[in-house]
């Protein structure tokens, strides 16, 4: 296979995944949330149980007027949704789907790259918040900045723990080194990574920056049409990304029965199971107050993550 064709196939595959997986998660969220609340959810779009609801939403968003407020900083305001969405696309490039190099771009420092790009999210929040010229947006943006910077720490520490255990920063390398008993050994790190990841993508119960009951819609207040749809898409791709990273780092990625042939399926199954849990959390838990949110981060997650690092190092030395 010539190089250009190889590249094309990989990029197209990632873009298709980038567009299809969030739709699946979004539809699952509609339906799961509805049934958890004793409702039915969308039933009309697409004739069969509303399967085309998100497509219809997309068409609606495209038709809406694209408004930039007069007091907004035009350039930054318009750039922010792209900045919110694009890092997730880059992360999907580095996530291994199955064994034998089934990854769009194998990177030796994959984990480092992924965490660095994930950190760009805070930039999009601040850009949209400041550029909107709206007090609700600004409040939401500052909350978001405080939250994202705070939760970055336990996220990175817990990821460092598993990297230390595997002895590599390469994501496929980590999955290959993974053993089932790591589930127990790395359990605190896994939980911390998942919770901090939830906070990173601003999903309930960590949606204080959006907090629609007090801040209208946080940093997204002034957005309409396609730009708002980009933010929503970013949220759903964020679910995929966090679920995929947790899968790859802590749940053994493609490991499972018949992994050599069905490895990709195992990865997808684990990703969707974690996405379900993310949706489940949203339905079950009320939003954390700002002080509770920071307290959870600094007084619970960070110390436990540090303790996990010590534990990992001790076990690693003892082996």
């Amino acid at each position, binding site marked *: 296979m010539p190089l250009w064709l190889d590249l094309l196939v990989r990029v197209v595959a990632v873009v298709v995944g980038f567009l299809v997986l969030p739709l699946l998660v979004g539809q699952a969220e509609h339906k799961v949330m509805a049934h*958890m609340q004793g*409702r039915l959810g969308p*039933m009309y779009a697409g004739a069969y149980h509303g399967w085309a609801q998100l497509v219809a939403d997309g068409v609606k968003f495209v038709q809406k007027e694209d408004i930039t407020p007069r007091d907004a900083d035009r350039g930054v305001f318009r750039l922010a949704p792209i900045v919110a969405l694009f890092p997730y696309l880059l992360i999907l490039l580095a996530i291994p789907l199955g064994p034998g190099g089934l990854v769009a771009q194998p990177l030796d420092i994959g984990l480092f790259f992924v965490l660095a790009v994930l950190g760009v999210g805070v930039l999009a929040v601040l850009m949209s918040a400041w550029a909107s010229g709206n007090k609700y947006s600004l409040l939401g943006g500052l909350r978001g900045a405080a939250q994202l910077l705070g939760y970055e720490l336990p996220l990175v520490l817990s990821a460092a723990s598993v990297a230390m255990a595997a002895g590599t920063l390469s994501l496929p390398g980590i999955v290959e080194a993974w053993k089932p008993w790591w589930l127990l050994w790395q359990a605190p790190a896994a939980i911390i990574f998942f919770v901090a990841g939830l906070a990173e993508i601003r999903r309930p119960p960590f949606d204080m920056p959006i907090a629609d009951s007090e801040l209208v819609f946080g940093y997204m207040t002034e957005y309409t049409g396609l730009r708002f749809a980009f933010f929503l898409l970013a949220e759903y791709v964020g679910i995929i990304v966090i679920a995929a990273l947790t899968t790859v780092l802590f749940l053994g990625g493609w490991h499972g029965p018949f992994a050599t042939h069905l490895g990709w399926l195992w990865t997808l199954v684990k990703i969707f199971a974690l996405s379900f849990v993310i949706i489940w959390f949203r*339905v079950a838990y009320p939003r954390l107050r700002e002080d509770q949110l920071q307290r959870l981060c600094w007084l619970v997650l960070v110390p436990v993550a540090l303790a996990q690092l010590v534990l990992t190092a001790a076990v690693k030395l003892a082996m």
Partner: protein
Amino acid sequence: MSDDGERGTPGKGLVQGLAVTLKTMTKRSTTRQYPDVEPELPPRSRGVIALLEENCTVCMLCARECPDWCIYIDSHKEEVIVPGAARARQRNVLDRFDIDFSLCMYCGICIDVCPFDALHWTPEFEYAETDVLDLLHDKNRLGEWMRTVPPPPAHDVLGEPSKEEATASRKAAGPGAAKQAQANVRRPAATTAERPSRASQKPGEPAADSPQAPQGIDSDSPPPEPPK
């Protein structure tokens, strides 16, 4: 993490929250898909009021008792020549019978006070209009609702017979048979379920064989004289 004073097992509340939502997900949802699926209304639902014009004698009780005066009735008198009678009789003819459902509060007093069963509840409720003036239903429209009036529930077999039935059966059985008549009146209760075609009801039971047909159905026929 929590600031509240009462502390149980840590994380118990979190697990309980997840359990509640998961349990709800496995149950059937309570959503009624109304426009696609007809709702199952309870018996005696109050949807709209139907008018059986033949039963109306223009006694005006309904219009007078209506708390918000939403019933409008016009009528005129007509002479009916009864062959063999000494003089012509008069009867009321209904010209107009409107109920304004934009005012009606569905108290059902008109139906309760109607002595001749001319007004009925029907469970039909889909008569919303885009213009409020169209909520004034005239007697033709009210008459059309009669098709949707459900049969009344059967009498309680264990309940006491109505006074009319008891008297009638006692009369039919003759003097001194009051004891037996009491036992018999229980049975015709079941046959009275076939309303609203009560005017055509045949007194099938031997015990109820007497002028117990409801009075006032045909307002032009003189009320039957109770036999002396």
